């Protein structure tokens, strides 16, 4: 009897420790008196991450949309559900919401999640959820093929693309001047990046080069580190249906990490810290980082003098940018001299939305020319999905004009398959090992071993 009782006590104590419970917020359900309540969520929050986007939704989209619906005789209220966390955590939250049939009606996701969300049944083709008007939306004619591809999985459109982006090398012109480097710096090989790093170092710059590494930075390591470098070494993560294992381009890529972090040109500690990426932003804004590889988000959302998380009042004068060179001229993918990687966010419908038609209208409204122009005014320019809007808004923005004219033509995309995020983590672990002192070739071999486990055997891997 004593034993039974004590095991009962233990069972209670221990069971309470195990929590794999899914928690999400419920989507608003108006219903009463014909009122329709819609919710929209993004990884954006007023005063924090992507603050400009959050303000735009709250202060412009919601009132204008409600007004427009009222004119049509519908009583619609829209609520914005903010979020200001790392992308991985945002993804976890969305997955749990969607799995349990909850979550906002209109949801922003990273384009690369579309495959796994679609396979899990968390998102459905737009035409299936909202009806045929989703495919006949006027905006599609304005969106370039490559950008439409971001929202397409197995030939069907699962979302509306919100835009696209490109990656470049940012540098601090003030620090460059001190180190005797030109303000219009454009390296043409990796060696030139390392040389610049060495000069910056000897002029006293604490962190000459920041190329994201390690698992703490998540996808930012893959997208702003491994993949652009891999492309520059002439490799792709997946080529002709085979995944790339310990190939020469991967070894070259990890080799560059070794030269940066083993050679004192970067701060390996920063790659290990829980909030290392935020800290690297902060340090760049404080003038402690010489060269940083990032997407245009960095320009728009980080060092933006008005709405950035690490604002630089003199951004336009101090921050320079350059295309990412191939390892040597002509050695990049497709024989290119310069490379980049692009992705893009998507706006999609929750299949369990109670008002899918109205939710789609809201989604389409946020991507109307008026809404995009409003969103991108006052220094918040980004590359929208619509060519008609881009023509107007990019004109006055030097970096985004640079990206759309010089970077997007030579960019590459991640493979839109469900298993990619797992491969991405394996790549992050390889960079973590190299930044921590492991030899590049060994890290590449370990990566190949992990890769074979992830993609279903050595048959699917080419080395």
């Amino acid at each position: 009897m004593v034993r039974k009782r004590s095991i009962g006590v233990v069972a209670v104590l221990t069971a309470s420790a195990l929590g794999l419970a899914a928690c999400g917020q419920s989507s608003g359900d108006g219903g009463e008196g014909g009122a329709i309540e819609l919710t929209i969520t993004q990884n954006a929050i007023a005063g924090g991450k992507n603050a400009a986007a959050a303000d735009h939704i709250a202060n412009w989209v919601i009132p204008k949309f409600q007004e427009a619906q009222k004119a049509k005789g519908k009583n619609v209220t829209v609520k914005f559900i903010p979020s200001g966390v790392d992308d991985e955590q945002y993804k976890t939250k969305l997955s749990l919401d969607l799995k349990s049939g909850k979550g906002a009606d209109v949801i922003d996701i990273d384009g690369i999640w579309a495959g796994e969300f679609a396979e899990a049944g968390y998102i459905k083709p737009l035409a299936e959820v909202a009806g045929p008007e989703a495919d006949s939306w006027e905006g599609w004619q304005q969106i370039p093929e490559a950008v439409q591809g971001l929202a397409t999985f197995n030939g069907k459109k699962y979302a509306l693309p919100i835009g696209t982006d490109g990656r470049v090398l940012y540098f601090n012109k003030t620090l460059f001047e001190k180190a005797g480097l030109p303000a219009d710096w454009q390296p043409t090989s990796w060696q030139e990046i390392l040389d610049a790093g060495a000069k910056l170092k000897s002029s006293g710059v604490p962190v000459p080069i920041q190329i994201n590494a390690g698992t703490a930075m998540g996808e930012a390591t893959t997208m702003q580190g491994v993949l652009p470098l891999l492309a520059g070494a002439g490799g792709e993560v997946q080529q002709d249906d085979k995944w790339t294992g310990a190939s020469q381009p991967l070894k070259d890529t990890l080799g560059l990490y070794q030269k940066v972090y083993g050679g004192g040109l970067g701060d390996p500690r920063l790659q290990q810290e829980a909030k290392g990426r935020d800290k690297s932003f902060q340090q760049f804004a404080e003038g402690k980082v010489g060269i940083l590889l990032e997407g245009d988000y960095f320009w728009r959302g980080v060092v933006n003098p008005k709405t950035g998380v690490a604002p630089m009042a003199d951004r336009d004068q101090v921050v320079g940018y350059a295309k990412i060179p191939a390892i040597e001229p002509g050695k990049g993918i497709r024989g290119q001299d310069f490379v980049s990687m692009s992705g893009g966010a998507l706006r999609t419908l929750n299949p369990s939305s109670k008002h899918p038609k109205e939710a789609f209208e809201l989604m389409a409204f946020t991507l109307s020319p008026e809404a995009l122009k409003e969103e991108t005014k006052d220094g918040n320019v980004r590359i929208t999905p619509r060519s008609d809007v881009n023509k107007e808004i990019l004109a006055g923005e030097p970096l985004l004009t640079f990206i759309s004219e010089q970077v997007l033509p030579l960019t590459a995309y991640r493979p839109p398959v469900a298993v990619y995020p797992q491969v991405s983590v394996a790549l992050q672990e390889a960079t973590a090992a190299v930044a921590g002192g492991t030899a590049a070739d060994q890290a590449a071999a370990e990566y190949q071993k992990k890769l074979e486990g992830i993609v279903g055997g050595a048959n699917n891997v080419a080395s």
Partner: protein
Amino acid sequence: MARTTSPPDPKVLDATPARGYSSDAAGLGRLRAGAFVAPALALIAVFLVFPALWVIYLGLMNYRLTGIAAAEPQFVGLDNYLKALTDPGFWNSTVLTFQFVLGSAVIGQVVLGFTLAWLMRNRRGALKSVVEGVVILAWILPSAVVAFLWVALLDRDSGTLNAMLGIPGFAWLLDHPMLSIILFNTWRGTAFSMMLYGAALGNVPPSHLESARLAGASGWQQLRDVVFPHIRGHILTNLLLISLWTFNDFGPFLLTAGGPENKTEILAVYVYKTALQSGDLGYGAAISTIILLINLVVAIFYLRLLRRRR
């Protein structure tokens, strides 16, 4: 306070009619007594037993958070459990968790909690209030707030501690990650032990201590021969509770996120990363089941010690 956290009295547990005690002291009868405990049992079944069984079931599937395996999970038998046994990440986390429990709960919280309670036992007035207030404050603050304070304290570039010690750039969370989270958790959880021991020390008859002093017992001898025998049950109960709490504590994640290079990836963090960040729910559930078993073993160990009290 002591009464609510005291170990179950063995006499009550062993109350059987054969020994002459009534098994129905309240005179309710089987049915009505059952009606009284039914709501509690229902809550336990819904929120504790069912999730625990569900976790065991999930551990037998290749269930994932996203992708095809989320829509159509397959039964994989014991694969997840076998994988755990050969997974260096799991063993690494298990070892780290035991270090964490030993360092922060068994040594840190118990020793510090008892020391504070012992030093404060006969004090009154402002000093006692301040000490207890500060210790309890550390316990009742929300985790997110506490984590932020500790990050601000230990940060290598602009941390308070480095500024006070005059060693800017010393990376506590990177160079001594386990020590950092052990100190963190000791600081965070000492209040419970302090309060429990404080109440327990009140139960030590002053006359026994007085006799011991008259007999010439030193301070340590008084502790060993008079105090500890009286509060042995409290010590074991306290150890049981804080060991299990610490074993399943997720707090360190807010400080180090399991890093650097998995050096603070205790089991709770490992499960979170596996199940939710990497989306491998099936494997995460299998590890959770193993954690459940480890907890059972730890608890039975303490409860057996407790029963030897007689």
